[in-house]
């Protein structure tokens, strides 16, 4: 998975850098999770919150999901469940798929650029 980096590190607090980075990439991680098919809200936020670098708590994901829905990158529909209430499933729209593809294309160069500056001796 594209964004499952640093899943092994435990963050007791949350550094400023981590929160800034997350702001930039979190929505693309959500889109990436939806790439292979619809998922319902609980599934989606549990998956994201499982990776420490990606979430502060499950609840903070919902405002982001709401924005993806409003900006047309994701769609939702209710689907009956055998167990309990109907679940709200999120699906990727064509616009969402395009946004994800664009990000996935840009990411390797971006990552390489950051590594270039961070690695000692690389910048001369």
């Amino acid at each position, binding site marked *: 998975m594209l964004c499952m980096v640093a899943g092994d590190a435990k963050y007791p607090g949350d550094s400023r850098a981590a929160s800034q980075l997350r702001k930039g990439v979190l929505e693309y991680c959500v889109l990436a999770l939806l790439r292979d098919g619809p998922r319902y809200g*609980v599934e989606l936020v549990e998956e994201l919150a499982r990776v420490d670098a990606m979430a*502060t708590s499950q*609840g903070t994901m919902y405002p*982001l999901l709401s924005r993806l829905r409003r900006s047309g990158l994701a769609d939702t529909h209710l689907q009956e469940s055998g167990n309990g*209430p109907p679940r709200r499933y999120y699906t990727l729209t064509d616009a969402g798929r395009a946004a994800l593809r664009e990000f996935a294309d840009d990411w390797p160069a971006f990552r390489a650029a950051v590594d270039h500056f961070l690695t000692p001796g690389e910048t001369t």
Partner: protein
Amino acid sequence: MTDTRTHPLVRAYLSSVDQRAGALPKARREELLADLSEHIEASLADADHSDDAAVSRVLDQLGDPGAIADAALAEEPSLPAGPRPESRTRTRVTLALVVLAFPLTAVPVIGILGLAAAVAGLWRIWKSPQWMRPEKVRATVLMLAPLITVPALSLIFILASNGLTAAELITALLLSWCAPAAAAIGLSRTASHLRETTTATSN
């Protein structure tokens, strides 16, 4: 399972989010609360438990209500700072008051209505969220300008021609009317520009 929303812990949790997200537009706040209650209901159904311990665990994983409210507020960048548009009709009424106040004061008998229109117009400008402070100040100055320009122009005419003819007085009034008219044009432009840009970006 349908009454998890009335569970005291859930109610306290949701009302805490509701309070901290008070600055959000109503629709956005309701959507957030609906998303969270759906999450709670679905999580409890998935867990096959709905006792107090299960409810606390689900709320614990959802996280701090303040953090959720902050995340929601962060998704509304234009919320506290920028101007927010008003309806076309409301704007038209305000602008009509701005333009008509001055000519009304010149009409005999009902001149007092002009004063009322001026006060109402200024009050609506200052209450409106669609204009920022500098523009409000400018509009107010232009609206009040005739108080100075009418006597000043009359004085000039009197000094120039030893008296004030009806034609000269009307000229002074018409010239003075340009200031409130300019105020209305400026306000109208900002308002319609704001309406266009906000409908274009917030879909």
